């Protein structure tokens, strides 16, 4: 199976000018394209494909779709077959359905979120190029994020009604999509309920995560930074720009990542995330966080979760 990494996220914003300012000045992305419908495409400096974020004008916030990139064009056929064998309908969107992108396989996760797979996106190179590159480019703005790293989706969970789309998504992603489970959080009697699942397709601790919630939504899109020092600088950038910080700099037990959570001007949660954590491999034993240690799993230092972190999403 050939899913390599997250390719892009398409999110809804209610004030495009404010959103562009945020993703440019705080995250450090650059606008690369605006289409006839007013959708705006942005890219981080260390990404080589044309864009990784689409902002769409809307009267609400949240996720339109998240797309992952596969290695070979033939992977799209193989994945179409395995997804449909899992009982999920798919639709192949023609090349150009999104600018700069080849054909896309569109389907919905058991949680209801729209996911797309693609193999082709216009290659433009990173801002430092591929020949004798400097480690970072001049003129970076804000946090200077390297790349869109992963997303966390809130998935309907109602144990009394026997609904757990975290578990359904996890099963689907591992069986049909070739992802692997790196970490999970389990709750309830004998830890029978899978409350959270962190999955990878490359070598990082997670490329996508699912957490149980009353309704489906977007918890956050996350941008990669090098180090703890970069996280602290990103915190300064947010303060300078009066960005609403949800969770101040800290470390996750899960994935070992260093983090800040904050909101874009439409209330979509962003994360700046540092540290590659550990080498994620298919044969690495799955890490499990139990209910009594869940707070430490989520925020390792404080050991407790603020209410807004679990109840607020778009």
């Amino acid at each position, binding site marked *: 199976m050939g899913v390599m990494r997250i390719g892009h996220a398409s999110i809804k914003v209610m004030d495009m000018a404010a959103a562009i300012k945020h993703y440019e000045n705080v995250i450090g992305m650059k606008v690369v394209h605006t289409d006839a419908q007013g959708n705006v495409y942005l890219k981080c400096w260390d990404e080589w494909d044309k864009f990784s974020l689409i902002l769409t004008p809307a009267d609400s916030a949240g996720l339109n779709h998240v797309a992952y990139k596969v290695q070979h064009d033939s992977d799209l056929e193989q994945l179409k077959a395995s997804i449909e064998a899992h009982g999920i309908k798919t639709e192949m969107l023609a090349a150009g359905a999104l600018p700069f992108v080849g054909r896309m396989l569109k389907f919905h996760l058991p949680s209801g979120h729209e996911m797309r797979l693609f193999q082709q996106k216009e290659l433009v190179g990173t801002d430092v190029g591929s020949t004798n590159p400097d480690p970072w480019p001049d003129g970076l703005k804000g946090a200077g994020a390297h790349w869109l790293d992963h997303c966390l989706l809130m998935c309907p969970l109602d144990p009394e009604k026997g609904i757990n789309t975290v578990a359904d998504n996890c099963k689907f992603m591992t069986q049909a999509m070739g992802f692997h489970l790196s970490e999970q959080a389990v709750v309830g009697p004998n830890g029978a309920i899978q409350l959270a699942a962190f999955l990878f397709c490359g070598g990082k601790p997670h490329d996508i995560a699912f957490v149980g919630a009353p309704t489906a939504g977007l918890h956050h899109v996350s941008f990669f930074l090098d180090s703890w020092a970069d996280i602290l600088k990103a915190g300064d950038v947010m303060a300078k720009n009066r960005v609403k910080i949800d969770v101040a700099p800290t470390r996750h037990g899960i994935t070992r990542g260093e983090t800040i959570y904050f909101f874009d001007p439409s209330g979509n949660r962003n994360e700046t995330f540092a540290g590659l954590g550990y080498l994620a491999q298919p044969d690495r034993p799955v890490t499990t966080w139990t209910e009594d240690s869940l707070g430490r799993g989520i925020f390792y230092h404080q050991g407790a979760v603020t209410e807004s972190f679990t*109840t607020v999403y778009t």
Partner: protein
Amino acid sequence: MTAATPCSVQLPQTGESYVCAQGETLLQGMIKLGRRGIPVGCVNGGCGVCKVKVRQGSVAAVGAISRQHVTAEEEACGVTLACRAAPLSDVELEVIGKMQRGFFYSITCSGSAPR
């Protein structure tokens, strides 16, 4: 558009009241109550946790609110998000968002019974 003077905000559900300084949103004023349970989410109109109904008085919008959380019909009846509305006069509010339980739970536990 903002009120020329500070406005008083009444919360009949808990018996509390607070003042919004000129230009402050209903939520910025509410935060100054300084207790647990204040529905602070994204503060940008997207998440809907600070949903309120303006029972009396008038407010001005200070930004977009998500239609996923406040319909046009609700808005016409005085429903809005506290992070996106500033009072134009003294107002009376009802807290109706999804952090409502925490809002009242904190009051019950701090000893001042809801009315």
